[in-house]
């Protein structure tokens, strides 16, 4: 039922039949000139800073020379991609990227859902608000500070080793990297991510709970039969969209956390791009690696989006 005929449209109807397309367009531009004037800088920004690099990505197919520029450099076709696929790091980078992502999915995805369900069980509102305020807080702490605190607390003579009377150099050992990365991510963002689920819980009709109580349902049954089904659509959408990001890992934090001793488990595709491209100025090769990653992300996101739209009618666009 959408009869959204605003009075504006009555004054100036949008699509009159029998009028030429150009007339429609020119009338639209005249009527909306201020709107287009507002849109212009925004579209220019996207054109330059998002579509510009997409165009610049052609250097992945070149032997790029900064002096000759994008136009003048030698075309080498898929050579850079072949170099990457046959490099010794290829397998390790793919494995590490997926491993960190899957660990984060398995532990990091359910954590905020569980937290939201537990917060929802609290009956005393001041305590509820306190839990929320405290758990949201670390989200606002910078990643540099979080990693800085980890470097300190997980050092060989740091607080963690003092408390457990152990002697582990956590930040220098490859076998601890993933746990620390995923664990600190949960510590920092679990409260923040629970907001969405709490909002979904808040939209559940309270009469459902009343009816369940009349029928004698205890708190577990209310949670199982009302709260969880109530937030399930939100969970499914976020899960599917999360699957679309399977090959994109928060590399800014990895760059702060890792060191040559932990590359074995910590080095992912995007950190490799950063080292080869920015630090070693190997532009064409690293652009090819980055483009490969972008292409996979694109395919995963499109797939996830399509599944989400089919299952739930929700999608990113």
């Amino acid at each position, binding site marked *: 039922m959408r009869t959204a005929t*605003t009075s*504006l449209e009555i004054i*100036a109807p949008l699509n009159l039949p029998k009028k030429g397309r150009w007339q*429609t367009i020119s009338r639209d531009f005249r009527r909306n000139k*201020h*709107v287009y004037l*507002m*849109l212009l*800088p*925004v*579209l220019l*920004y*996207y054109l*330059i*800073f*998002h579509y510009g690099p*997409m165009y*610049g*990505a052609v250097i992945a197919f070149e032997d790029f020379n900064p002096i000759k520029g994008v136009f003048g450099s030698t075309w080498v076709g898929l050579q850079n991609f072949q170099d990457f696929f046959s490099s010794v790091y290829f397998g390790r980078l793919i494995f590490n990227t997926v491993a960190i992502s899957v660990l984060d999915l398995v532990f990091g995805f359910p954590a905020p859902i569980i937290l939201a369900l537990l*917060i929802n*069980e609290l*009956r005393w509102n001041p*305590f509820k608000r306190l*839990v*929320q305020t*405290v*758990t949201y*807080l*670390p989200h*606002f*702490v*910078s*990643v*540099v*500070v979080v990693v*800085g*605190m980890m*470097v*300190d*607390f997980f050092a060989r003579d740091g607080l963690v080793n*003092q*408390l457990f009377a152990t002697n582990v150099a956590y930040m220098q050992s490859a076998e601890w990297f993933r746990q620390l990365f995923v664990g600190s991510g949960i510590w920092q963002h679990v*409260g923040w991510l629970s*907001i969405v689920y709490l*909002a979904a819980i808040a939209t559940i009709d309270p009469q459902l709970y009343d009816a369940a*109580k009349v029928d004698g349902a*205890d*708190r577990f049954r209310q949670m199982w039969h009302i709260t969880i089904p109530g937030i399930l659509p939100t969970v499914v959408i976020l899960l599917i969209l999360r699957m679309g990001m399977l090959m994109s890992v928060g590399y800014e934090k990895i760059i*702060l956390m890792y060191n040559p001793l932990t590359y074995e488990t910590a080095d992912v595709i995007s950190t490799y*791009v*950063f080292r080869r*491209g920015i630090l070693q100025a190997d532009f064409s090769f690293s*652009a090819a690696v*980055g483009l490969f*990653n*972008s292409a996979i992300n*694109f395919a995963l*996101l499109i797939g996830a989006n399509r599944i989400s739209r089919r299952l739930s009618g929700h999608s*990113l*666009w």
Partner: protein
Amino acid sequence: MVATALRPRRIRHKESSGERLFGFGTVLFLVALMGVTIYPLIYVLFASLSNAAELTQHRGLLFAPLSFTFEAYRRVLENPLILTGYRNTLFIVIVGTALNVFLTALGAYALSRRNVLLRNPAMFFIVFTMFFSGGLIPTYLLVGQTLHLQNTLWALIIPGAVQTLNLIIMRTAFQGVPVALEEAARIDGANDWTILFRIFLPLSWPVVAVMILFYGVAHWNSFFSALVYIRERDLYPLQLVLREILISSNVQNMATDVSSGDVLAIGETIKYATIIVATLPILLVYPYLQRYFVKGVTIGAIKE
């Protein structure tokens, strides 16, 4: 409806012992969770206010500063790099956030119009960038070399001028503004600029606050673009200075007047004080903005 009126406001039922145990366990768990969440920050605060020599001797948790002193803060605030870092970060936060919110509002308003022919193509043009990007290296070459923004603070402001997710949040908020208000203004001769700045922005103040918070905090906490584009130490934003002090453990220039053995001890307290100095501004404004950002997250997540 009489039946609704007679319905008791809250149906109570007697809780079983299992339920009470569960309730108690939940409270206990959440108290523990709050402890784990907040204690690291409290430890940092206490350690930053402690005597350096005593802190290195101390083992285990801290429940109060050891021999309360502002010594570490004095050294941190005398460090020229921290001061220039603060100055650069303030510039980025203020100028960057103003530009962010301005452009995001323009885009959100334009894309919330119903009778604009190019709305959907423009929306596609923008949302597509959430799915595909050219990657770090072409962006770096464009911003740093083609546009010559290398070693300028503008490299940290302009390339992120609009965040697509924030644009969508603001657009959703604008779509909720009643059409009647806009029509009344238009009859009085208002153009789109007046409608945006006099009607939409004031009416959507909570969302504007969320935008200021999201963009502002992102600028305050950002280090990666600076790592990529900034080489001159005079232009380091606070987070890059922090990275040197916290992660690369470069505290020498703040402890030049002590013997090398004490540098290590004082270095520890300097690190903690630096964390507090860099985090406090955000932690102070955060409680006041909490009620706004919950709204922002919700709008962003629940799309019509």
